[in-house]
């Protein structure tokens, strides 16, 4: 019963942050909800084994792993070249909106692993070591994936090249 209450409390508290991360990983609100729900179901499965102080790390790791789990997840992913799927985005009539749309479009064209690395590094502001731990890969893999992801973003969205045009310093 205590497990159940702890789970309820965790989901109520962390649903929104998890959903935002999942949104960047999937590029779609519905797919993001599916991803978070699958991760939470998995967490519920092993709740009695998860360290209470590391529940969030566990769920995020599941979420990242699942987002990279390409052949399973692919069918849930929106068509990356569908030009209408972000037309519901907030239209504030500024260049900022156009920039974000371009970024999301470019993100959707990256590989799942590259996308996960970028989200972990620059959205969740994790270090390379922490990102490697969450994604279950080596630090060198994180470095190379980050470099390749940024290079590809520069190609996909040259207008944003100034945003990620310089090599970021390792942390």
């Amino acid at each position: 019963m205590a497990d159940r209450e702890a789970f309820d409390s965790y989901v109520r508290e962390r649903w929104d942050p998890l959903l935002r991360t999942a949104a960047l990983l999937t590029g779609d609100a519905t797919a993001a909800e599916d991803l978070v729900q699958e991760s939470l179901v998995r967490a519920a499965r092993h709740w009695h084994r998860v360290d209470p102080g590391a529940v969030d790390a566990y769920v995020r790791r599941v979420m990242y792993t699942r987002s990279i789990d390409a052949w399973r997840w692919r069918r849930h992913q929106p068509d990356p070249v569908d030009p209408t799927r972000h037309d519901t985005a907030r239209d504030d009539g500024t260049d900022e909106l156009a920039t974000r749309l371009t970024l999301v479009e470019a993100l959707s064209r990256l590989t799942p692993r590259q996308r996960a690395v970028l989200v972990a590094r620059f959205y969740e502001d994790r270090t390379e070591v922490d990102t490697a731990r969450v994604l279950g890969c080596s630090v060198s893999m994180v470095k190379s994936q980050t470099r390749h992801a940024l290079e590809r973003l520069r190609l996909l969205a040259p207008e944003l090249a100034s945003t990620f045009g310089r090599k970021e310093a390792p942390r």
Partner: protein
Amino acid sequence: MNTPTGELTRLLTGAADDIVEHRTAPGPDIPQLWRRGRRVTWAARTAAAGILGVVLLLVATGGVLLSGIPATVPSVGGMLTYPEVVSDLFPELLRTGDEPIFGLVATVPTASESDDSLVIERRGALASLGTSAVRADHIVLTAGGTAPALAPDGKRVRSSEGIVDLTDGSLTRPNSTDPVIQSLTGSRSVWSPDSQHVLVDTANGPAVLNVYADPVLTPAAGDQQVRAAGWRDITTLLGVRPAAGGGLDIVTRGLTEPRWTTVGTVAADAVRGSATPSRVFAAPDGSRLLLVWPGGSDPARSVLVDARTGARVPLAGETSATTAVWGSCDPVWQAGQPLLADGGLRRPASGETVMAFSGHTRHGCVALAGNELTGTPAPGAADAWQERLWRLWAAALPLGGVLALVGLVWMVVALRRSRRHGERFLPMVLGRLF
């Protein structure tokens, strides 16, 4: 001023808000999430228990099948079977010590192969006996053209070379190196029921050796007339000698006694006044004697008598018109009746085959452990094949387990690879298991 990566973080945060804030679905159904998780847990546990149950069932089934293989130890008792047909097409190699020997059959020497004997297995196959898995290490068992005498426990054999321990192939005191033993070497040997002594019928009379080939009993004066038949019990010899008033005296001698004692007489009319038989064979339990005269000397070439009373006992299926012709082989006994043992086992009167060899190879004498055929007949070659299939099953069970393990590892590796590369290596049904 923002750094480029700081700017990227800001843009990503805004993009996440853009996507999430326009969703229309309600919040999470937390109880349902919890139930789904627990359901998966129980499904996984149930599946694991089911797989474990199936594995245990398979192991138990294999165990039951294996335990159903008839034992090959002659002394085990009533569960034994013996083959009616022995496959002799592909003799296998049997390692010494693997199991007590059920029987031996002499091979007919050819220009390329010398005198030897093959092991008859209860499951209906022939094998050559070796000290290792290498065919070159096989033990040659000869007995002057007949099958060597096999002890009732199936662990020793008296061959022309001496006493061979079949559990390790060792030869106890070879005949050729010991003059005393050489003088006791006879043409015929009979093991005591406890497999501890062997009776040797020599030219000077019967002698007895123990399992180390040491003489335990040597012929006494006048023993030349005694024809040793076998054993009445584990310490008493049984034989015949000519009676003073015609007929034959049935005589016994304990291993510690100095002379033979008459315990019965076979009347002259029972043996039709014939001279002393050329060969005499005792049943393994010492209850009956088979007296055999050389062919042509008398119309009745063999007589079966009770070893206690001397009364004649008819052979199974014997009529006044039948004549049992005995070859050079010692008979094998079954339920108190002697069987012809030349190239198989046959009933002497009716000619009914009790044990035959399936191939076209000619075989010599058959010698069974204790010269006795026990158990019930296995119907035809099917039973021999059934026993072979059981052995195959025993070998296939661990092999199947290894294959299943390899398959499982392969599936896990393939699945991980498929996840990594986004390719579908496994069918969906299999993939969902993981």
